[in-house]
């Protein structure tokens, strides 16, 4: 019998009061590797993870983790998973070592085994020097590392990380990315949520884009770029008037605009005939266009195409 997938969701629905958060989400996450749930705020990422981690009950549909149903086989699911949420779930007034030993013992290890596991995790997450300090004295990055270490005290086969690097400085984020990559290398399935495109691009073997409580697209970063972004033609205009005129001509074919720099982007396949035709079309008088550039699609383009939100806002979110 083939191994069941790490995660399998079928037509999952969940509303809070009148707000529909998951609207028939179906997806499969194969075993092993890093998988990203990518989406804007309110797309349903956290709710999905909470349902998978047995913390929230879905209204309907089914969710299985490592082959176990989250409602009917809650205990088995809990033995297969661990969760690191948006807030580091640690006791501030216990030391790093005390937190890990406590959690390891709760996971069923004997006292000696728990101390050994804690020491090994502290070493691996570069926290040995801080092991005897109370968590309240830790920096944000150290807390996240300890939180990640805490999610490994048992022997989970699937780890859920809900926005693991939100609020971290770039160096700490980099460090955490390496650690998450190593986890997957050791055979664990990592499912993380993120609103950072860069994070999904760098870290994830496969990306699921959530939008409005549904799966908008799923695949590797390269797949998604190919399918939804292709290439784009960036057009820079001489002045505001020619920019406005071109924008009017292109209408909803504009995939990106930067009025401050009088720049518009449209999709292209990059071929000379198509680019030439496009240029003739948008600037028939050969007057307003200053420059053009053909660019590879970025994950931003995919994200924007799929989530269909005002471009300017998304740029800000994506570049944080």
């Amino acid at each position, binding site marked *: 019998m083939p191994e069941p997938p790490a995660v399998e969701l079928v037509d999952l629905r969940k509303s809070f009061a009148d707000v529909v958060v998951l609207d028939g989400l179906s997806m499969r996450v194969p075993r092993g590797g890093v998988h990203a749930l990518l989406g804007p705020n309110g797309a349903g990422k956290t709710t999905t993870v909470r349902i998978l*981690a047995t913390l929230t009950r879905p209204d309907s549909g089914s969710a299985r983790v490592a082959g176990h149903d989250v409602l009917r086989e809650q205990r088995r699911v809990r033995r297969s998973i*661990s969760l690191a949420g948006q807030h580091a779930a640690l006791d501030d007034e*216990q030391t790093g070592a005390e937190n890990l030993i406590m*959690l390891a013992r709760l*996971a*069923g290890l004997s006292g000696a085994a728990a101390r050994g596991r804690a020491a090994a995790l502290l070493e691996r997450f570069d926290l040995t020097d801080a092991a005897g300090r*109370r968590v309240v004295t830790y920096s944000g990055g150290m807390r996240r590392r300890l939180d990640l270490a805490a999610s490994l005290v048992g022997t989970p086969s699937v780890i859920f990380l809900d926005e693991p690097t939100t609020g971290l400085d770039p160096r700490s984020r980099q460090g955490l990315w390496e650690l998450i990559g190593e986890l997957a290398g050791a055979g664990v399935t990592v499912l993380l949520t993120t609103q950072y495109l860069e994070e999904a691009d760098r870290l994830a073997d496969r990306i699921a884009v959530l939008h409005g409580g549904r799966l908008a697209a799923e695949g590797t970063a390269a797949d998604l770029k190919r399918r939804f972004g292709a290439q784009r033609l960036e057009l820079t205009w001489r002045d505001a008037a020619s920019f406005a005129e071109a924008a009017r001509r292109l209408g909803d074919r504009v995939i990106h605009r930067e009025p401050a720099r009088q720049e518009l982007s449209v999709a292209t396949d990059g071929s000379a005939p198509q680019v030439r035709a496009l240029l003739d079309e948008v600037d028939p008088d050969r007057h307003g266009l200053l420059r053009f550039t053909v660019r590879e699609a970025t994950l931003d383009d995919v994200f924007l195409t799929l989530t269909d939100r005002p471009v300017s806002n998304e740029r800000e979110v994506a570049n944080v």
Partner: protein
Amino acid sequence: MSELTLRGTRAVIMIDRCVRLSRRNLDALLTSVLLPVIIMLLFVYLFGGAIETGSAYVTYVVPGVLVLCTGFGAAGTAVSVTTDMTNGMIERLRTMDVGATSIIGGHVVASVARNMVSTVLVLAVAVGIGFRPAVEPLRWLAAAGVLLLFLLAISWLSAAFGLLARTPEAASGYTFLVMFLPYPSSAFVPVETMPSWLRGFAENQPVTPVIESLRGLLLDTPVGSAPARAAAWYLGLLAIAVVLSAVLFRRRVA
């Protein structure tokens, strides 16, 4: 490890955790130890001279101070439970399959232990300023039993309130309620001195039988039905608290 052993072990780990956290929370620890002593000194030296109780006032007031202060300390359980429920710890514990009994039980047992320690300290200071209890081991044991039951019920009720409160600040409001309840009782002044409507409340409210029991048992005077009434009140309240916290926990995490 069998499921039952694992559950037992987890309960012990959660108690150990809460005891350690209370030891580390210096503010709360100082409050729960210093406050009783200060209140006792306040009553004995400031108000005591003006209150006629038929015996040395320190002798009269110590049981009331014990109840006031340990009640206040136990009510602090509400704040620690709410903190656990709101800071993400609860979600980690739930995904590790740690049950409500272990989580709530840890807080309750730590609270009882903490307040037994402050009881001993208050008694030591009380003896220092002239409290002379009777030396009667069995009666001491009975007094300890009554106080233990009182603490257990108040702690568990506090835990239930902690599950109800959305923020630690709201939870701390509960401690004030518990702190005020001993005043309209026989804790500080004999109920005979109160206006009749207040006296009716003071004689029948749940704190009074605890105070009457402690007073009688520690001073070797007749206790009448006070211990039985105290047991009835607090076994009842404990049962309510246990059921209520189980229901609230389930509702809170649903």
